């Protein structure tokens, strides 16, 4: 990441993902309240719709990017010793990427079952 990317880009990504997260949460709530899946098969069928599956993947990708920028902000504000900051950032990075692959696996398995 270039030096230029660390300020403006992080800030922009945080805003952009926030908008998508908000819109998708509204969509998700509306789905779960008005038309909740009755059983596991119905849920699978719902996720298997390409638009829903894609929307979900995008939702979790946004969530992880948003969490990364937020966590990085907290560390820059409060954690000043370099060694601890780097360790925490790396740990958070691995956890977030791990969560990303995990959620991707869940969605793909559900959609293709």
């Amino acid at each position, binding site marked *: 990441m270039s*030096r*230029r990317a*660390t*300020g*403006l880009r*992080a*800030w*922009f990504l945080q805003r952009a993902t926030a908008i998508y997260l908000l819109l998708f949460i509204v969509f998700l709530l509306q789905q779960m309240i008005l038309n909740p899946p009755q059983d596991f098969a119905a849920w699978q069928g719902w996720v298997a719709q390409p638009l829903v599956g894609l929307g979900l993947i995008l939702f979790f990708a946004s969530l992880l990017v948003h969490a990364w920028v937020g966590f*990085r*902000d907290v560390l*820059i*504000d*409060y954690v000043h010793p370099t060694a601890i900051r780097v360790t925490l950032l790396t740990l958070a990075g691995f956890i977030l990427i791990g969560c990303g692959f995990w959620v991707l696996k869940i969605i793909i398995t559900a959609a293709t079952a």
Partner: protein
Amino acid sequence: MKFSVYRYNPESDSEPYMQAFEVEQRQGMMLRDALLAIQAQDESFTFRHSCGEGVCGSDGVNVNGSNKLACITALADLKEPVEVRPFPGRPVIRDLVVDMSQFYAQFKQVDPWLIHKDPMPEQEILQSPEERDQLDGLYECIMCGCCSTSCPSFWWNPDKFLGPQALLTACRFLADSRDQAKEERLDKLEGPYKLFRCHTIMNCVESCPKDLNPTKAIGHIKAIMLKDAI
């Protein structure tokens, strides 16, 4: 009227303490008058002040938890006992006097002067009334420091985050039609610290004795930066 005032003399005190004072309240009395009355009771009590009418920006203090200019803060509006402390987050030199050098260093970082690259014209550089209007709400800052020293982002990173005062000034020169260093100014603000430590907490807006809005100015800089980047 009862006062509880922060006292610290690094030459004789091992740590700071709060001292109680009582001042007779007259009508229309400002906090600065009360501090002068306290000084008459105890001449070792130290604080900065000068013009006494909210113009010089010398007597910024923390009153009942918020940063204010003592000279334009009416005693009638304050809850007793009035707790007067130095600006939070700044090294205390003595009593209410704090070291503001970091604050001035951040101000200097934004090149607070017009940069004009074209050859200077014979006469003054003219501005239309509309162009002049762009500077309203930006140029009036008296640099009292109430905003920056109430900003949590400035408390955590005063050496790297410019703080609301310097960013307001940066916006003032970005908004000036006569300035020709927009790119350089924006480049200087890049990175995660100088500008982007602002989390829109808005303590700066709350505390500004001149009713300026540094948060809005910071948002304006971000918008200019975004427009410039895409």
